[in-house]
């Protein structure tokens, strides 16, 4: 099967790749481009571990085809920090121990970034519903919610 040539932007960089027509964007990111921050927990859009931001919209990259990224703008967890300065969400996840195993963490960080971009001052309930598409089996979510609340406060002050 002939490959599809795709030209896209990932974390601000121009990227070109060839992919199969039936290949997911998640597989392209992980297997072709070496961006393994996005994880496959289910492959069916139920766990959110592969969350990325596509043209300002939060999506599961396992439900997007690699070919669909043509001309789009992709943000992944690898692009969250500025140089060696962590994004406030990354910093607060560390301070609050909002991760145990950490497999869901990239997806939560991306989902939380998208949430705070749209709602910079969310209530606890808005955070809980905003992150309801991401599964975490370790933490019981308590420390994740607190980390996002704390990061929101820092980002408001910035």
């Amino acid at each position, binding site marked *: 099967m002939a490959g599809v040539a795709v030209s896209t932007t990932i974390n601000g960089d121009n990227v070109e790749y060839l992919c199969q027509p039936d290949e997911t964007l998640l597989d392209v990111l992980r297997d072709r481009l070496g961006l393994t921050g996005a994880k496959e927990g289910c492959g*069916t859009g139920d766990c959110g571990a592969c969350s990325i931001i596509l043209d300002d919209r939060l999506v599961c990259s396992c439900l997007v085809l690699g070919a669909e990224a043509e001309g789009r703008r992709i943000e992944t967890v690898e692009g969250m920090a500025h140089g060696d300065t*962590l994004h406030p969400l990354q910093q607060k996840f560390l301070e609050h*121990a909002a991760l145990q195993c950490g497999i869901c963490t990239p997806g939560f960080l991306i989902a939380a970034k998208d949430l705070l971009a749209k709602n910079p001052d969310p209530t606890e309930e808005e955070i809980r519903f905003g992150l309801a598409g991401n599964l975490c*089996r370790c933490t019981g979510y308590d420390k994740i919610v607190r980390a996002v609340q704390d990061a929101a406060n820092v980002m408001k002050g910035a």
Partner: protein
Amino acid sequence: MNFDPRFSGRNFTSVGTRPIRPDGVDKVTGRARYGADFNMAGQLVGRVLRSPHAHATIRKIDTSKAEKLPGVKAVITSTDLPDLTDGDSAMYDILDNCMARKKALYDGHAVAAVAAVDARTARQALKLIEVDYEVLPHVTDVDEAMKHSAPVLNDTIFTEGVEEKPTKPSNVTKRTQYGHGDVHEGFGQADFIVERSFKTEQTHQGYIEPHACVASVSSDGTADLWVCTQGHFVYRQHCAQLLGMEASKLRVTSSEIGGGFGGKTHVWAEPVALALSRKAGRPVKLVMARDEVFRASGPTSATSIDVRIGARKDGTITAAEATLRYSCGPYAGMWAELGAMTAFACYKLDNVKTVGYEVLVNRPKTAAYRAPSAPMAAFAVESAVDELAKEIGMDPVEFRIRNAAQEGTRSSYGPVYGPIGIGPTLEAAKNHPHMKAPLGKNQGRGMACGFWFNFGGQTCTDLNIGMDGSVSLAVGTVDVGGSRASLSLVAAEELGIAYEQVKAVVADTSSLGYNDMTDGSRGTFSSSMATISAARNAIKILRERAAQMWDIPVDDVVWEKGHAIAKGEKYGNLAALSLKEIAAASGKTGGPIAGHSELVADGAGVSFATHICDIEVDPETGATRVLRYTVVQDAGKAVHPTYVEGQYQGGAAQGIGWALNEEYIYGKDGRLQNPGFLDYRIPVCSDLPMIDTQILEIPNPNHPYGVRGVGETSIVPPLAAIANAVSNAAGVRMTHIPMSPPRILAAIEAERGG
């Protein structure tokens, strides 16, 4: 060197603080490498063909068409994994579970596997494998499987542990019994007796990371395995034994692990990946899809439990009895036995008897799930305890306090307790503000207790001091939730240096001696003991080197706050030597400085918890909402309190999912109907409230810092605590877990109708 593991009180400097974990930045930037994040040059993609039948004889497997497909490099069946288990029935079961030999025993049982140049070719190849099945009658329900009329899974199984050896094979592999006293006499003394039967459905650990590995077998007989596992040393042993390799020729590296909870203590795909790599002569990456994780790995037992408890009017329990039936999947296990041991462990009982039955069913091989078997037993017992308290007219907390086990109590499973936390957690719960908070309409409060043994086991640790005075700590227990931070704190504490001076890593199997796996809540307990021992050994060498630098007897050198100090007035002019200074001079005083430790971490202190929760039930739909949740648990000593809280919260959340929603649903055809996160729904963020925690510290006398394992006990009380809360809210006793809306509604309607 003799190591004294006994607890000695001390003022901690590092232990008990809450620093950022050493592996944290990699995990928030996407750099941390998990099972599926590793690749090798020339690597092939492995895929497994699985049985669509719950029970079937495999007459023939024809792989010839698959082998001819361009891009396919290896196809294997059970003939490529010959039986090398030499009469070891437990290993034979593992082998048979990795790749079915004569029969497929559950929907999802592996029957063949391929390695191909890419995923698409591998998928196509699976479709070309022809398996000739003779479908057999199946049984998936634990009670049905015990009936004489049930199809027998394995005709070589004759129930063990019964007085007369059975003449016919059955699905009951073993009967076990625990207890003491005379329950018949005890029930004779009772003024009130509660007797109930309970059921719990099968759940999965639900780790977000599917099983993943990369196997590379070389033509010289050596091999490498990269894998997400809770115990890479155990995986090495099992894989080496199943493939006929020497263990030292197989290097296993544990990746970062994306959750395990007991589910990554068993090999499934790894021997298959190694066999594929051996046959293909190239590295093979094998990653399970989510539906494979549900169909073929994991689950806990489904159970059926009868409980009978009697008490006097004054609230003293006079007798307690339980019969516990646990499903094991198609292979023998000791799941009911663990239930029988833990069921009444919270209580001081003169007369107690528990009987467990291990039951084979056509479901995946049961695996450990966080305090395996204890939550179901606690659900049954703690529900009955609550009901009995009500009948007597006592407050359920007071009733439990009155009967709680204490130091010196002979436990229901045999040993006599040392200092334990059941009484203190109950007292803390009684005095917690949560207990006094008002409840609204359709809301109920429940509480329950839980017990877990905890485990110690074999542990090996290296502590190497660099020339710059920084410390590398190499541990062999996989870090499942922050233990590298905890162990760095312990090394810093013992050496008297800063946390930042220590860097902990999980070493591979070729770099360190054998370690048992991270299970039984042993990671921080056992590896901290080994770290303390290694640090003490290093301190002995540091003292010797300082003595050499000063040219004084080593007995005159003591170690305090990270420095060697010459003891005695005659050394008044000698300035203390820091660890850094001694390390810098090490090249001239005898070479590298290191401390090693190899030990069996005996004396894991038993663990108790009490949970309180408030639940609202919608009487029209049966839907529930968790309003408030509080965990009180004894940690012995919380090394990194934030991660201890995390263990408490995580266990509670898993228990909430188990209690209210999660279950394996099988069709009449014996196929799993909900092998995905959409239909097997674990709690999401919007399902839960904040989970309040209270850490009690009752020192474990068998650990230098008093540490107890904390990982598992938190999943033991939730099923019962929530069942008690729902029962109080709905006004009807719930006896079947999960308490999904249809079950609650049916119970409410039956109560109304009755």
